[in-house]
């Protein structure tokens, strides 16, 4: 016990033995941990905002389809849509975590305004219900159609292509294939943008009743789900499998695999690379400081070994010193990170529009205890690895050489 206490005391005091060098080491570790911690918070904020945007703009927390519907193309897709949607939704509403449900029907239509004709891909939706949850559908002009039975909202690019504004009339033509073509005349209530240029250039939304009439069906293609939170999805999906086995519950990150999943993977890979660079800087800082300290104490080490002290215990003392440095440096870095996020970065970081996105946004720095613990662990690990080589070299030096060292 006393041995451990004296080793720890010696390590603590050694940290302040050469104050300038220790300050440099502490600054290196503090800057490294600060950078890592804030970057992790930034990354977490970015991911959470991107996820919220994805959920609140289009997909909800997930959607329900008839089992197998998404797996292949169907000659008569309407035969594979959800029958008696009201009864199904009544069963879904009592499942765990469910806040709201949004029946949807995909409509491929020709949009005609005067001599302008554009192909669009839209959805029939419950306007009043969706307005409560899909808050990321931002309107350039006008607003959603809510309960208006002849309303239509258009993506920004689609509206521009047709040259329409709020209040203008649009005729929708749905090619029926083996069924007769259907038309409907609707009035523009809003022009929206979701942030995704590609989506906004072809998307429109119309009341579900209009979509069902155009497609001559009383079914819905899918039901989007709003849950209490992302973490509620597994329990909800399990409950669907049990109570409604003919339906398939698909989470938002699978529905938006191309954008969301790939973006997350891409950001994770980028983060791992930057983390590696930061850790390398911390490693080199520690390596340099411990190398200098060990060099300076070579004769001390020789004396301890001459008096019968083992290589392991001498090495342990220096490793402890590196750990003390790492803990102190990390504490400074983490505290500074927290102060920054509560002060100058309280309102987040302003970001320009991302590729394929039309609007700028702010990323909140979301710091978290698990991130702090991970940063602290990485700092300690890096410090220990960084000191191993110089310490190992010193304790293996022939004692007589160590005693002669100047």
């Amino acid at each position, binding site marked *: 016990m*006393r*041995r451990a206490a*004296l080793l720890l*005391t*010696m390590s603590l*005091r*050694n940290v302040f*033995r050469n104050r300038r060098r220790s300050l440099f080491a502490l600054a290196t570790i503090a800057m490294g941990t600060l950078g890592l911690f804030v970057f992790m918070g930034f990354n977490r904020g970015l991911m959470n905002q991107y996820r919220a945007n994805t959920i609140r703009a289009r997909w909800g927390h997930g959607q329900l389809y008839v089992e197998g519907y998404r797996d292949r193309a169907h000659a008569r897709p309407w035969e594979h849509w959800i029958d008696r949607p009201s009864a199904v939704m009544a069963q879904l509403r009592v499942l765990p975590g469910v806040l709201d449900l949004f029946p949807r029907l995909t409509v491929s239509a020709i949009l005609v305004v005067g001599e302008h004709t554009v192909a669009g891909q839209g959805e029939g939706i419950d306007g009043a219900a969706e307005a409560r949850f899909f808050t990321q559908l931002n309107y350039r002009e006008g607003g959603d159609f809510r309960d208006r039975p002849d309303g239509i909202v258009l993506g920004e690019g689609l509206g521009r292509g047709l040259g329409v504004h709020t209040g203008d009339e649009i005729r929708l033509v749905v090619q029926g294939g083996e069924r007769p073509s259907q038309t409907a005349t609707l009035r523009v209530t809003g022009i929206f943008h979701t942030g995704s240029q590609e989506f906004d250039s072809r998307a429109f939304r119309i009341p579900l009743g209009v979509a069902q009439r155009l497609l001559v069906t009383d079914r819905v293609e899918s039901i989007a789900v709003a849950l209490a939170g992302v973490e509620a999805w597994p329990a909800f999906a399990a409950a669907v499998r049990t109570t409604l086995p003919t339906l398939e519950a698909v989470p938002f990150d699978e529905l938006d695999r191309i954008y969301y999943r790939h973006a997350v993977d891409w950001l994770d890979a980028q983060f791992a690379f930057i983390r590696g660079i930061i850790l390398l800087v911390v490693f080199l800082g520690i390596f340099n400081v411990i190398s200098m300290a060990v060099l300076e104490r070579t*004769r*001390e080490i*020789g*004396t*301890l*070994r*001459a*008096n*019968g*002290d*083992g290589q392991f*215990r001498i090495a342990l003392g220096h490793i402890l010193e590196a750990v003390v440095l790492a803990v102190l440096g990390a504490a400074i870095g983490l505290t500074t990170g927290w102060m920054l996020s509560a002060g100058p970065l309280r309102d987040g970081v302003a970001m320009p529009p991302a590729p394929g996105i039309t609007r700028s946004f702010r990323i909140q720095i979301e710091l978290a205890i698990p991130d702090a613990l991970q940063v602290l662990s990485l700092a300690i690990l890096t410090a220990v690895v960084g000191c191993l080589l110089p310490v190992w070299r010193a304790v293996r030096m*022939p*004692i*007589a050489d160590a*005693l002669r060292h100047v």
Partner: protein
Amino acid sequence: MRLYEVRAVSYRYGGNGQAVSALADVDLDVDAGEFLAIAGPSGSGKTTLLNLLGLLHAPDAGTIRLDGRDASTLGERERTRLRRERIAFIFQSLNLIPVLSAYENVEYVLLSRPLSSAERRRRTLGALAAVGIADQAGRRPQRMSGGQQQRVAIARALVRDVGVILADEPTAALDHATGRAVMDLLKRLNRDRGITFIFSTHDPRILAAADRVVHLADGRISS
């Protein structure tokens, strides 16, 4: 009682055709309780011989017996264990740990032994008292004079109660009066406790006080 038997010991520094002979065919016997000085000019091999007697390295040729046991063929781990049990050092440059107090510097070398904390404390304070600096126990070396620091180094060597202390130029860095006081202390410890002291030295005070003086020249014992 015979402590060391050194027979035909040679040691060379360097290699690859650049080797320099530091000791050649050295024979030496040291009895327990001796106050022995190894004298000679710089480069004569004094420190090398002291290092070999301290088992800091093994000879290239010949044998060194300590307490009748051949120590020249032992591996690093066995040499460390034997050194811990039997040999202590005092160096010219002291090499005290500056971040530890005098007490902690002395106590540190006892930590590898299975002693109770009370026994460790008794021995540490006893060693500091034996060299006359018990009242300085809480001070760090850099706040002490050169003589006081040398006494801490002596206490550190004494505290393990190992029976033989090897001292490399222990008074070389001290002024005349301090060097004399340290010399008197070492002689008293030799006389009162029967501790064997082996010095490498130029200091005429040590040479005058020594029971025996071994002269080295060019790596060989000349007298």
